[in-house]
């Protein structure tokens, strides 16, 4: 990655209001190339809305989102081919087989050698056994692997993950985390990870932002936050922040 490369994500005083009700309150942060940033917060903290604005699916009420230096409100098509995402808010078409789904998304992303790419992903993510099965007939763990394959189909430089291991058993969740670590190491990709699983965040993330009521309540490396709050784990830090009125918007 070039040293003068722009941040993967640069958010400046970002706000979102739904009918006058604030969902995100003027947050600013950036994600460096190759960095993994955790976005933490309770339900309704504004994580998904923030990710929606980064993807361009939600328009900000104020502020800006830049991805690789491109303003997403004005020219998102200049960078969408370098991004991808996985979210519990979307699904793969159930009636199509896994192979058909990956082929369609491969073509949408302009993949040059689609069959080879699908074969590579099938091997890396252990999809071979159900590649020709309909996506709707898969188990939760298999669906997560397929969603991960779709999110990696274009070898994105920026990966947005919204609770990628929610509802997975510990073994499958651990397997997904290992794949993400490998992908980040091999590709130097930037990853924004929204999760309620603090152990997962501690393991994967270089830095963490804790959101509360639409604002940034605190941020730092997992280790520095644990030290700052005098706790043993990020989960305890999260609970301190979530339950303390003093942290609301402290770092925003």
């Amino acid at each position, binding site marked *: 990655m070039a040293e003068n490369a722009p941040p993967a994500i640069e958010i400046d005083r970002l706000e979102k209001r739904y009918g006058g009700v604030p969902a995100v309150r003027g947050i600013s942060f950036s994600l460096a190339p190759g960095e993994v940033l955790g976005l933490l917060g309770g339900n309704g903290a504004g994580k998904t809305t923030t990710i929606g604005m980064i993807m361009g699916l*939600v328009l900000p009420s104020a502020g800006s989102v830049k991805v690789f230096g491109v303003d997403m409100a004005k020219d998102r098509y200049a960078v969408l081919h370098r991004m991808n995402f996985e*979210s519990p808010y979307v699904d793969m078409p159930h009636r199509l087989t896994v192979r058909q789904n990956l082929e369609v998304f491969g073509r949408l992303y*302009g993949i040059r050698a689609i069959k080879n790419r699908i074969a590579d992903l099938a091997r890396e993510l252990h999809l071979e056994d159900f590649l020709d099965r309909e996506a709707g007939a898969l188990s939760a763990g298999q669906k997560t692997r397929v969603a991960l394959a779709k999110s990696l189909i274009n070898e994105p430089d920026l990966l947005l993950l919204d609770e990628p291991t929610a509802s997975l058993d510990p073994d499958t969740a651990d397997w997904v985390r290992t794949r993400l670590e490998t992908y980040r190491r091999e590709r130097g990709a930037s990853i924004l990870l929204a999760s309620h699983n603090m152990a997962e965040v501690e393991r994967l993330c270089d830095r963490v932002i804790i959101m509360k009521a639409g604002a940034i309540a605190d941020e730092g490396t997992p280790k520095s936050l644990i030290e700052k709050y005098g706790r043993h784990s990020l989960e305890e830090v999260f609970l301190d922040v979530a339950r303390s009125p003093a942290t609301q918007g402290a770092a925003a």
Partner: protein
Amino acid sequence: MSTPIYHHNAGFSFTRVGALILRYTYLLRSSWPRLLELVYWPTVQMLTWGFIQVYVANASGRAAFAAGTLIGAMLLWDVLFRSQLGFSVSFLEEIWARNIGNLLMSPMRPSEFIAALIIMSLVRLAIGLGPVAVMATMFFGFNYFALGISAALFFANLVLTGWAVGLVVSGLVMRHGLGAESLAWTVMFVLLPLTAVYYPVTVLPAWLQPIAWCLPPTYVFEGLRALLIDHNLRLDLMAEAFALNVGLFALAILAFRILLEKAREAGSLMQMGE
């Protein structure tokens, strides 16, 4: 940095349009009920109106009915209705599958999405109405394809109207979610009495006739009767319908884009699904 595994086309991409068509083709191939549904209702309609026409022609002896105005109008009405439905249902498949976020987050542009929906509307029309048009010839002696250039002009005008309505319905579903879904099956029926599908515009009350003439399909159905009864191809009517359709289609694209922006403002694209 290694060479990207993708080819980035910043402009309109036929490859991405092809990807969407492939997606809908896979879906149709995987589901025989979907294919059956495409043929079922047009066949029922054709048989019903065909027998009504036989009965009325025998009972009244009117040349208009003998010429096939009822069954011809029914076939053209189905072109109008099913072009809109084909467009809207392909769009709704993405909502039902909770796939719209995946698509809108991909490099696919709205114009490519619209192009794919238009092509799928034509594919679904061919599957649904092709066999029915053949059956109309076999059972009732009404050969739509024998209308030649007129058939093409009628078809082009009606599908343009259907796509325009389909665009607005799709935009409303994006903005308001599946609460607006039923519009896909119902909205076109407002046009059934107003566009004088089965009777001349002069049958309508005087105050309603100007409204009917604001609707492009009215010109097509009047043109069909002129052709079948008077053997007169009314190019003037076709040109007027086309002019109205161009304006309607442009407005529909504008409405679709505005509703997409409103959906992004409201955050409704993040909450789509069954």
